[in-house]
């Protein structure tokens, strides 16, 4: 298939596997930051085919997984209001809050709608002037610009019944937090290519230098990921720690100036809690004062939320690369996609879901095999 097939060619992949094998002389731990990369690695069996010295550690880059429980609970409360049409991307609907999710709220009569673009939510607001329309704005630097653009459009068009429930997060502060952890085992990073498509690579050289860690900007198809790993291993073997762009067909050094300008107009950087990880300073965005009236938290005064996390779920350690999903005692037993304890089991980009979906030959699950 044009644009995709050529990046999963088995002959080229074998050549890259051979190259990686040839340069590897000792064990290395490499973190792929993005959940989309994790999904691709597990789906295509890339980790099974790498030399055993190379360990891939799955990072925190699943936007659904790291959205704080408090924000999910706020979404559930806002969505439950009779005058609200609550719009979201599909994969947020199954994420558990404290006891329920958006599907449950929908089945109780709330008007929850799946949209494919925040602009669709704005259109719904235009078509329903007597209702409040809220869009659930989560995600990394990839989804933040269109959400910012939508708020900009709402203000420009004077659409007063639209607001954004914001929980945007930034990748570089998360890399910094992971490297600052005393338990950190990460020796190199595959940075998320689509994040750099928007933001460019300017934030990474300082991180690479300070933590003496190679960072390779990497795409999402199998050959992209193998090329990222090959470059990371070459740097590690040579004792280097530079920033490399292994995704040049999508990433320019300066990123997208238009998207960055939109971000800095509509949002401002703030401290943000990451589900399972905790507070990371300066790691998120919120609406800037100029757009505060479009902030759903401000508009709906959602306060007094009491959150309740599972006591056995270890998704936070999975997100920080400290354990593999199947090393959690609840994996595949109390915690399945059917009854998820944490967001990493719900999201299609979550590491636990990827292991559950694609790796049950290695970690058999009795519950799932008895249903069917």
């Amino acid at each position, binding site marked *: *298939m044009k644009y995709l097939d050529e990046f999963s060619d088995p002959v080229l992949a074998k050549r890259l596997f051979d190259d990686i094998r040839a340069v590897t002389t000792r064990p290395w731990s490499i973190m792929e930051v993005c959940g*989309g990369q994790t999904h691709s690695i597990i789906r295509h*069996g890339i980790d099974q085919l790498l030399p055993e010295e190379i360990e891939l550690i799955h990072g925190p880059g699943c936007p659904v997984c790291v959205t704080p429980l408090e924000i999910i609970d706020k979404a559930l409360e806002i969505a439950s209001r009779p005058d609200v049409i609550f719009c979201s*991307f599909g994969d947020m609907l199954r994420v558990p809050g404290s006891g329920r999710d958006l599907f449950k709220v929908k089945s109780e009569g709330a008007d929850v709608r799946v949209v*494919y673009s925040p602009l*669709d939510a704005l259109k719904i607001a235009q078509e329903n002037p007597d209702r409040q329309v809220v869009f659930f704005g989560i995600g990394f630097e990839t989804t933040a610009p269109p959400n910012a653009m939508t708020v900009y459009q709402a203000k420009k068009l004077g659409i007063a019944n639209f607001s954004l429930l914001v929980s945007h997060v930034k990748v570089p502060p998360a890399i910094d937090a992971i490297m600052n952890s005393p338990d950190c085992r990460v020796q190199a990073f595959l940075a998320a290519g689509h994040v750099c498509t928007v933001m460019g690579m300017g934030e990474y050289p300082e991180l690479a230098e300070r933590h003496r860690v190679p960072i390779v900007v990497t795409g999402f198809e199998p050959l992209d990921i193998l090329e990222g790993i090959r470059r990371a291993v070459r740097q590690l073997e040579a004792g280097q720690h530079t920033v490399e762009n292994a995704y040049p067909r999508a990433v320019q050094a300066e990123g997208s100036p238009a998207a960055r300008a939109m971000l800095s107009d509509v949002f401002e950087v703030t401290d943000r809690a990451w589900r399972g990880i905790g507070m990371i300073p300066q790691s998120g965005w919120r609406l800037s004062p100029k757009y505060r009236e479009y902030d759903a938290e401000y508009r709906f005064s959602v306060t007094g939320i009491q959150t309740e996390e599972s006591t056995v779920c270890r998704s936070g350690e999975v997100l920080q690369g400290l354990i593999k999903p199947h090393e959690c005692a609840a994996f595949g037993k109390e915690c399945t996609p059917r009854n998820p304890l944490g967001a990493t089991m719900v999201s299609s980009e979550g590491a636990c879901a990827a292991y559950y*979906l694609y790796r049950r030959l290695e970690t058999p699950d009795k519950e799932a*095999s008895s*249903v*069917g």
Partner: protein
Amino acid sequence: MGHGGGGTLSAELVEHLFAPAFGGDVLAELGDSAHLLLGGARLAFSTDSFVVRPLFFPGGSIGDLAVNGTVNDLAMAGAVPAYLSCGFILEEGVELSVVGRVAEALGEAARTAGVVIATGDTKVVDAGHGDGIFINTAGIGLIPDGVDIRPQRAAPGDVVLVSGPIGVHGVAIMSVREGLEFGVEIQSDTASLAGLVADMLAVCPDIHVLRDPTRGGLATSLNEIASAARVGITLDERALPVPDTVANACAFLGLDPLYVANEGKLVAFVAAEHADAVLAAMRAHPLGKESVAIGHCVPDHPGMVVAATGLGGTRVVDMPLGEQLPRIC
């Protein structure tokens, strides 16, 4: 909503709620159609309800689907479809011209499939209590002597064949329902498969399993068969016939084509010695000219479907929980 998606939740609803409440041995088989013995004749009997939005889409309409869906359920038992019933539930306010277009499409599809609409019913519900038009069809057909097609008959060594490109209907519906445009128009593959099945049975009456992978896609059908027969299934991922348009649309939305609905495709399990003949018969029929072998039945990992990835790894192809949800990025 997930209980209507054709995945694990749908199966649980039927197995744990409906089947125990209704009782009876016939229902316990849980195939696409029931196999009945009546006056010495072996009949297949099936029913299906159609709630598709929009009512008209590229390549078809709810009228075509209402015929082809039930006809195909009968054909998947190897039956020659004969008679259909047709129940319309109309929402107050739906235009009669729209009902007329649907009825014409339904009649045309029945004539093409060679079945007779023998009885019907019409109900009208209040505005706001329906979605324009809902249709239920039920059908009966005669199963020829010597034909015994059931999911339980899948056996290690069987070759798994599929009659053409997958995921086309689901992407066609998404392209109009969600207002998504994928650069080229994708037509639904809705069609009656009874003729194709007849040609396959002519060269091999001992086909073990037939299934039309509708809701939940090919992955769901294969999981159901693996579970019913307690066999493993291995797929060659690179052999899967996924058209570029479907692959691109799915990549864009974060969906897996294996789970996207089809309405005019079948999957067949045949013993290895008959596979070439059946494949040739499929390719000789207009609805099966792009048929391919995609995998095998194996004694390993019973109840589980495992794909060999293009790079040489393996992955489990699981039963979906409910509807697939588009990803955030």
